[in-house]
């Protein structure tokens, strides 16, 4: 592994089998993630953007190895290397019990602050629970850590006895963050952490995440559909469409000079809070995103692409370096 990386993903493929026929044999498969490789550097924030069904959340769940809980026959191929204090390990090769030992190092924050906290557990219990499995702390130490964490995320230590329903959406997301931080992880996967929140609260949580990242030296995989939020928080961005990366590179660069036709369309579709840009030239894509079930052959974007050529059906375009550190998966465009 490259010394500056903390996570290296090589050719990750996530397939969900589709069964059918009289004996429920596998008749097809949905390639939710279709050969994706990327690195997460130490201390950086990598933003993963794309529309619903593009596979961005699946990547997060595959990395943290929790996909098998929701569908036991999922197939995950590829390598997921993570750096730990004791060496490098391929998370995809670990058994469930081995994975559990490493889960303290890699934690997740979820989108829905309403359903991702157990309503029957007090906030203190929710944050304390990972400590029971991943540390040898005694009761008093755990309580101290819970109080400390609550204050870190902008809540009060006294609130640990309360239950999730007594908190607002933004406060619950703070609780979710405290829970994720409890085991001192190195990597945080944040899956749409602010998209369920009101605008004024969204900004608070983004600021909190950035402050905590600096304080705890966290590496952040930030999954979201809101491009301006991703641009704000990420140093690098990867744009996804139907299970593949379209474009990877520096966040500012991609936001202001996208190369791939999909990134261009996506960015021009975002409504900006500036009426002067009302009449900016806009690429409006026709049609819907195909479902991963009916993924077109070759380049997944070709059915909606304004510059598609017949050859696009023949091969999946690989990521090419169009300018230093800026990759795009389309042979017909340049920086």
């Amino acid at each position, binding site marked *: 592994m490259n010394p500056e990386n903390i996570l290296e993903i090589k050719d990750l493929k996530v397939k969900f089998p589709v*069964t*059918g*026929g*009289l*004996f*429920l044999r596998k008749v097809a498969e949905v390639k939710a993630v279709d050969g994706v490789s990327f690195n997460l550097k130490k201390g950086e924030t990598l933003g993963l953007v794309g529309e619903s069904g593009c596979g961005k959340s699946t990547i997060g769940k595959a990395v943290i190895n929790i996909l098998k809980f929701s569908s036991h026959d999922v197939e995950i191929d590829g390598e997921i290397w993570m750096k730990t204090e004791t060496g490098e390990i391929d998370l995809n090769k670990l058994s469930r019990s081995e994975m559990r030992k490493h889960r303290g190092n890699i934690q997740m924050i979820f989108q829905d602050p309403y359903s991702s906290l157990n309503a029957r557990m007090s906030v203190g219990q929710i944050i304390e629970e990972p400590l029971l499995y991943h540390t040898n702390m005694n009761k008093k130490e755990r309580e101290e850590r819970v109080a400390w964490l609550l204050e870190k995320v902008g809540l009060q230590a006294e609130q640990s006895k309360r239950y999730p329903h007594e908190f607002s959406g933004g406060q619950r997301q703070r609780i979710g963050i405290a829970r994720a931080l409890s085991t001192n992880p190195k990597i945080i996967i944040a899956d749409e952490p602010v998209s369920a929140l009101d605008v004024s609260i969204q900004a608070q949580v983004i600021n909190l995440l950035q402050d905590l990242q600096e304080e705890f030296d966290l590496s952040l995989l930030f999954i979201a559909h809101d491009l301006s939020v991703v641009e704000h928080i990420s140093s690098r961005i990867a744009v996804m469409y139907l299970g593949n990366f379209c474009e990877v590179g520096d966040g500012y660069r991609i936001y202001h000079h996208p190369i791939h036709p999909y990134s261009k369309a996506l960015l021009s579709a975002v409504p900006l809070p500036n009426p002067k840009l009302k009449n900016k030239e806009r690429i409006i894509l026709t049609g819907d995103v195909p479902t991963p079930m009916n993924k077109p052959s070759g380049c997944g974007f070709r059915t909606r692409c304004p510059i598609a050529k017949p050859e696009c059906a023949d091969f999946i375009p690989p990521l090419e370096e169009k300018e230093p550190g800026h990759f795009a998966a389309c042979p017909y465009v340049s920086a």
Partner: protein
Amino acid sequence: MTTYFIRRFLLIIPTFLGITLVTFLILQIVPGGPLEMELMKIRMGGSDGVSESGSTSGSTQNIPQSAIEELQKFYGFDKPIHERYILWLGNLLKLDLGKSYVYSEPVMDVITSRFPISIYFGLIGFILTYIVCIPLGVYKAVKNGSKFDFITSALVFAGYAIPGFAFGALMLVLFGGGSFWDVFPLGGFRSSDYETLSLSGKIWDQIHHTILPVASYMIGSFATLTILTKNSVIENLSQDYIRTAFSKGLTEKRVIFGHALRNSLIPISTGLGHAISLVLAGSILIEKVFNINGIGLLSYDSIIQRDYPVVMGILVISTLLLLVGNILSDILYAIVDPRIRFK
């Protein structure tokens, strides 16, 4: 979709084998089977049951071994148990359920003679339940929280809490011509002089004998279906598409019956498939209380009398009905809800 249902039908076979095998084994292994009963009868001094005290002791020796073997052969107990099961299964494939020990008639005839009576009560109860409960449930949903809703809920839950047979017994005490009122007959399917009555007399007689048993049949299922309908309608009334319907300017009536009810019937219609097995199975206790010769009473008697061929015969029919009913439920589900695509 078709393959789904073909698969479901094929799955009936192993399920059916499993259920019959387990029941068969239990019946054959438990003590007090037909052989023991027969021997007991002989020991007790003959089938008339009149025995002199003191003469029973030591009478086991009086039955010669050959007679026991003969009896074993008659009941088929001379062969090992797995052979007996396979033999029974083979006969079943030829639609031969064997002969009843008690009635000495083919099991098929015994059962089919009882079917019409059970279907009669089951079907009337079933139809009445749906006719009453669905409108009642809808009305309760619309008037949720009103006095009417409260009182009817109290009534249906009281009905739910009272066992049907107990309710039947109470009705008989009150209305069966005992110490209180003489409104309804004490039981039976029809009066003994039914054949001599005029047509209108026959109809009246039949209704007269039907009311109390049907009421007892229904009382328990009332609560379930009414509350299911009510909750389902209430849930649907809070859905987004109801708001859309109102925003189109539809009347409340049209919104409830054209939109909410159709969606509310989805969970209810799936219960229909299961209902066929209930319709035919009858109710042991209610048939006992009202002395109705239906399937329920037959299965009760055949178990008590260890009439194994009849017990197994009823089991075969009710198992098949249940399994087919399940599939029927799925088919109904697919018909009423276009979103359902089984695979």
